[in-house]
């Protein structure tokens, strides 16, 4: 089940970064980045 959840987190991370990249408002870009950081560290199994 861990692998499945890592895959889900990775997919959400990808969608988050995609939204960040296409977003025009820098504030919303920052919000996306705040979400991306924990997802990234969990996908890499660092935290």
């Amino acid at each position, binding site marked *: *089940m861990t692998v*499945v*959840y890592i895959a*889900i*987190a990775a997919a*959400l991370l990808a*969608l*988050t970064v*995609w*939204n960040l990249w296409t*977003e025009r408002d820098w*504030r*919303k870009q*920052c*919000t*996306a980045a*705040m*979400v991306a*950081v*924990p*997802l990234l*560290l*969990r996908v890499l199994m660092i*935290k």
Partner: protein
Amino acid sequence: MSHESLLFLLMLGAFAAGSFALRLPVSLSMMLASVAAMLASGNGLGVRHLVEGTFGYVDTMLVIATAMVFMRAVQESGALDAITGIVIRRFGRRPAALLPMLMLVAMFPGMITGSSSASVLTAGAVVAPALMLLGLPRETAGAFIAIAGILGMVAPPVNIPAMIIGGGIDMPFVGFGAPLALLTFPLAIAFSWALGAGKARPVDPAAAGTGPGEELYRRYGPRLFLPVLLVVALMVLGKAAPSAFGLGLPVTFLIGAAAACLAGRRFNALAAAKAAIGDALPVLGILAGVGMFIQTMTLTGVRGFVVVGALSVPPALLFAAIALTMPLFGAVSSFGAASVLGVPFLLALLGRDQVIAASALSLVAALGDFMPPTALSAMFAAQVVGVERYSLVLRKLLVPSLVVVLWALAFIGFSTSIRGFL
């Protein structure tokens, strides 16, 4: 004034400055407040702490994000329109019976998952169009499903705030079913009528404009509802047979979303997923910001200042302190309120029936989901019914919230007699 009280003021000030002067979103204002307190308390930028704080909500983020993806898929497939059409055709003429039914349906996902967001975003989205067709204004419909969200989260069999409060004093989650049912179901039925009073009218299905929904149903048949039924089935099985079906909510929602891609109208799944995450990001960002905020409060001692302050009131005012501070702390997080304040309050309520007192405290804590700036339940409800400013939904929640607090306090006050009744 103590160092911690000044830091608390600094955090509130930085948050207000971020929100109002700089017009930053709530997520960034929370981070700004956290960074300000980190610097002022001599912790530097505290990057490790800020990032660590966000991890308190990683699992919640996955639940909310996947729930949004599922909802988007169900909507695109046409199932929502079809369900509304059928419900109105069958029950539209009898709103007095339909309203409590819709309330219980909207509560259901919260009851078995313990998550108000899951309730509002799934079943809430299913019942909201029917409510509006019955004549409820958008804001009232939003308030209806927001209340269903928190009552569902508190109602048995799963109530995470009660588990958190119980866990803090080593009380197992046993014997909570009856008190929680008594605490929530009467309120649910009363609120469903009260919110519909004077607004809900019998609807003539022919004139309701549900034709397109019913048309979709004629075209795709019952398989249109398969994704929703699948998710409900997996939630129930996950509760009934966790060893075999304990997939967790994120997997459940994604299975439902995949089914929705095949069940009805065709749509671009990738674009829908991206849009769903785009809609979810402000809330996910708030969760990350809240995580940073709580970690900073704990690290700098502001949390202790707040908790000891709440406990410092004379015993006669203890109920007032519960009624005020728990929903207020819920502005940061309702689970946080349960853990940080619920446990000390329960310890202070010596001599009461502990299970009933903990149940009632969990209801007060759950109200935190209405409290800005996070206001998860109200925010999602506004999103579901299409109200731009969620404060319009909040306005409709004021009186019900007051009733909820008084009801919960009455349970604490009369806990021993209620125990006898049960």
